[in-house]
């Protein structure tokens, strides 16, 4: 396993690959039943006449799947201390049953903490691609990273 990455290791432009995440119809429907019960996330026939033109995952589900890929890959790697929000997300293209997602997480900003000397903020731009290499979502998210040499 790679050694721990600290705040100081996240240079702007550094990119990490996360994933893959195969998306199933069952999971799309299960998430939507719980959190986003709209016809275009639940029912193939009704979804055909929706703006999405077919069954597609809730955007919140895409965020959650992206978080899972990021957490599985990045959390063991970095001394992460949680996040404080997500600056922006663009849901660019519907995520369909059978899609296989992956994430490119690129460091786009770093900022030392104003109040604490043991942490810093690293902002990632996470670009989510499907198996055809088409962008499904882009989101920006700051993550709190531990600084090197601190307890």
């Amino acid at each position, binding site marked *: 396993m790679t050694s721990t990455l600290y705040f100081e290791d996240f240079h702007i432009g550094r990119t990490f690959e996360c994933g893959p995440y195969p998306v199933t119809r069952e999971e799309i429907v299960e998430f939507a039943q719980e*959190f986003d*019960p709209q016809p275009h996330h639940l029912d193939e026939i009704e979804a055909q006449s*929706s*703006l999405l033109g077919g069954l597609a995952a809730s955007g919140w589900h895409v965020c959650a799947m992206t978080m899972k890929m990021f957490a599985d890959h990045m959390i063991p790697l970095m001394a992460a201390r*949680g996040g404080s929000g997500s600056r922006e997300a*663009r849901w660019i293209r519907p995520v369909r049953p059978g899609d296989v997602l992956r994430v490119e997480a690129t460091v786009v900003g770093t900022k030392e903490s104003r109040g604490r000397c043991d942490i810093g903020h690293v902002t990632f731009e996470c*670009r989510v691609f499907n198996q055809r290499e088409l962008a499904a979502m882009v989101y920006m998210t700051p993550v709190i990273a531990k600084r090197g040499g601190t307890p």
Partner: protein
Amino acid sequence: MTAQYWEDVEIGARRDLGCYTFTEAEIVAFAKKYDPQVFHVDPEGAKKSIFGGIIASGWHTAAIWMKLAIADRKRAPRESPLARAGISPGYEDMRWIRPVRPGMRLSYSSQIVGKRELSSRPDLGLVLTRNEARDETGALVFCFTGKGFVERRPRSGELSQSHTLSALLPSEQSGEHP
């Protein structure tokens, strides 16, 4: 009556979406699937984290906003179903301000804060919303600016369009590729 078309949406209109109490079991179940960080999934480990105990994934807090917004939409009195709506191009400025702990009861709200025409899609308009969750003391816990497409009122003599969102999406050759 609630707005039917983009033209009817009133800036400033605010809706209370209702309350939700987060349980530890739900927090852990969501996080095991989607956000398996120690302070979301492991009560013992979470005690040693900077949060001092289990807290909900921020995506869980956000997903509950969606759940309550849909429930509210179904409750709202309407003469006819809202013109095609419910698709969003994204959000901005999502903030997880205070940790959401087991047993906390959040009240969610949504307010219309802006409207934009879409030059690429004269049949749709964009509606911007300021969405919040507050704890029982009234302190802000979570907020974001939401965006949603709402169908515009068909002008007389115009055939209603039934195409999908593809015109809004970047073409497969363009921009979004690295």
